[in-house]
């Protein structure tokens, strides 16, 4: 050791440190950390100076001042005298509403498209292909504007609304649907429904245990379905339909009573769902084709019926491939719901990040709130999907 250092010409300390792997990694990290920290410090300093120059401070007090703007669709009580904070809550609810409904519809449509794409029928297959390619290659904002335009221009004014069996009315100011008024007896139906759910959860594990021990098989799906849907429906009609439907009526220039779904919501919902469904369709198709054909052959060699092959062999394996990309599509639908601002649907970006920001001039605070809210949603959705993914993952050695 000492011999080699003596025999070689003395190298300077910098190159010696640089050529040692451990020290080099520490040096690189210190430099990187210093650079990031310096940049951060520089930006914060600039912000402080800039804010001082125009006499602004950072404060979230504005959240409790009256917002004084109207929001057309709100599930909680909101008037223009409510605070910016309430406006933000309304925005959050509206974003979540569109995300949840969008996720549901796009999953259904997407699985349907995936199955159609796998169909042996040439015409159906090509129809699904054309739909998927058109939808995927055109920006989602364009879909939203196009569908919104169609709803606003193609549907009639309230006075000559499309009448669906005297209960629902489709107009360009929204879809007017009857709203339910619940009578006390209805709670029995609801109780039966909840009991049905509890029963099916128990019955599923019971049927699995019986099948593991004896090989006897119960039709779990049909029994659960009749417990959850069938009995409550029978009960509902036995009790004499304990829901009063309030039917919207044309008064003046618009319909009153009942409930209304705004055209912005419908446009955004349909556009986002159809757009995302095209992606989900491709994910489902590739997931199902990725399950080796030998699995299906093995199942039929064992004498498993076609339906049971699909539900017990193919779909569980396909789901493992489908879930991770499906998660990112769900995240995309939540994030794309921010495009609502283009057609005036009042979501987070349009309320707190739009009108509130413009009225109060507090860019920093409003944008921070918006970014944090979206980050929270994204992390929650991916945490849930990761948990689900782990649950159905193949257990290996």
């Amino acid at each position, binding site marked *: 050791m000492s011999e080699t250092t003596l025999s070689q010409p003395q190298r300077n300390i910098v190159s010696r440190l640089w050529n040692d792997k451990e020290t080099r990694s520490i040096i690189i990290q210190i430099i990187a950390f210093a650079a*990031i920290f310096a940049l951060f410090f520089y930006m*914060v300093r600039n*912000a402080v100076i800039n804010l001082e120059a125009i006499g602004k401070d950072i404060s979230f007090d504005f959240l409790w001042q009256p917002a004084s703007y109207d929001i057309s669709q709100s599930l909680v009580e909101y008037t223009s005298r409510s605070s910016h904070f309430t406006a933000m809550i309304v925005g959050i609810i509206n974003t979540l509403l569109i995300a949840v409904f969008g996720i549901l519809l796009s999953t259904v449509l997407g699985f349907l498209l995936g199955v159609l794409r796998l169909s042996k029928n040439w015409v159906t297959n090509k*129809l699904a292909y054309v739909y998927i390619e058109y939808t995927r290659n055109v920006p989602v904002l364009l879909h939203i504007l*196009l569908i919104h335009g169609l709803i606003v221009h193609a549907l009639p004014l309230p006075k000559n609304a499309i009448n669906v069996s005297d209960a629902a009315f489709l107009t360009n100011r929204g879809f007017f649907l009857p709203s339910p008024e619940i009578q006390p007896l209805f709670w029995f139906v609801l109780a039966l429904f909840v009991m049905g759910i509890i029963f099916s959860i128990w019955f599923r594990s019971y049927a699995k245990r019986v099948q593991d021990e004896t090989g006897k098989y119960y039709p779990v799906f049909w029994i659960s379905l009749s417990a959850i849907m069938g009995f409550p429906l029978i009960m509902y009609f036995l009790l004499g339909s304990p829901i009063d439907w309030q039917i919207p009526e044309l008064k003046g220039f618009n319909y009153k009573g009942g409930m209304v779904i705004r055209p912005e919501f419908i446009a955004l919902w349909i556009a986002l769902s159809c757009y995302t469904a095209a992606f989900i369709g491709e994910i489902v198709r590739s997931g199902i084709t990725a399950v080796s054909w030998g699995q299906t052959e093995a199942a039929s060699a064992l004498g498993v019926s076609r339906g049971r092959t699909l539900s017990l062999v193919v779909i569980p394996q396909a789901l493992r491939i489908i879930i991770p990309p499906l998660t990112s599509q769900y995240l995309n639908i939540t994030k794309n719901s921010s495009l609502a601002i283009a057609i005036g649907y009042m979501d987070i*970006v349009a309320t707190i990040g739009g009108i509130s920001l413009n009225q109060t001039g507090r860019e920093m605070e409003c944008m921070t709130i918006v970014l944090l809210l979206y980050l929270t949603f994204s992390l929650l959705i991916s945490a849930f999907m990761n948990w689900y993914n782990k649950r159905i993952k193949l257990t290996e050695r």
Partner: protein
Amino acid sequence: MEKNNLSATGSTMKPDYVIGEHPDLPPPSNTIGPIAWIRDNLLSSPANIVMTILSIFFLYKILPPSLDWMFFDAAFVGEDRNACRAVADGACWAFISERFKLFTYGFYPIENRWRVDLSFVLLVIAVIPILFDKTPFRKYGLWFAMVFPFIAGWLLVGGFGLDPVPTEKFGGFMLTLVVGITGIAFSLPLGILLALGRQSNLPIIKVFCVSFIEFIRGVPLITLLFVASTMLSYFLPPGTNFDLLLRVLIMVTLFSAGYMAEVIRGGLQAIPKGQFEASDAMGLKYWPSMRLIVLPQALKISIPGIVNTFIGLYKDTTLVIIIGLLDPLGIGRASLSDTKWTGLSNEVYLFVALFFFVSCFAMSRYSLYLENKLQTEHRR
């Protein structure tokens, strides 16, 4: 062979069927040709027949009215909306042809539009050697492609002997191409760096890359564009006036770099550990081993994902209308407020949709071609 010998020795009779002297018979007529195709693909089972009938009914309901509206009952020339309506009930494409220049160049000064055309020609010259490796003089073409962004930037923005054009004048398809191509060109290298950083052994670099990627992927592009348009100026030294288009370009690039990084990380994770160890054993340092061994394989695997990210970025350029830049969609919406042409939103949206469809579909076809070309494994 065995059988032939047997029959030859077993009997002295000449066999009636001499192998190899008869031509192959054609397959039975019910297994080939259009009739068999129709039977197999359209009418193989009751469910299949129902599907066929439903699909054809759907096509019958949708196709003729759409074609009528788009072509047979459409007006291609006319002064204004009423002139169109007088001729035909369908689409009024006269609107698009009158505004075509606006859709292409935005408000770029008319006397300088040759610069946009020239940049576009240069773009084609720069892109061809990148896309196809049989291009003649490919080496020089690639060098040209490296300097092209700077030449195009100079041509479009001006200065150094050309009239300067403020970026607020940019618009239309030209703006889409500027934002899209800048994003594509810069997000790939940035994404590779972020992906390598995320896989790195250095904890601080790793933490920084992970939090950057997760932040970018956790928020919508719109909010980042809002940050760029409202908030970013606070973080810059007092008195700096930062071009809005440049801020948008930076945000779009960072945004797609975050997604790109995840796509490439997938590719990196698919490389067997033996490849890393082998390159260590060969005595390659970090960067040479990445450049020569790991990245070529990782990028090859991630081509579909990379192109999908490009397509996503290209489509996301439409979001710039929300902060007031005039891309084709923005130009279209602005034109709709002209009383001469009011109410023709479907024409505008379909025209812009066609533009995006052609470019994005071409990109995805190219990605398929590239995948096939780089395929080195045996086909199953």
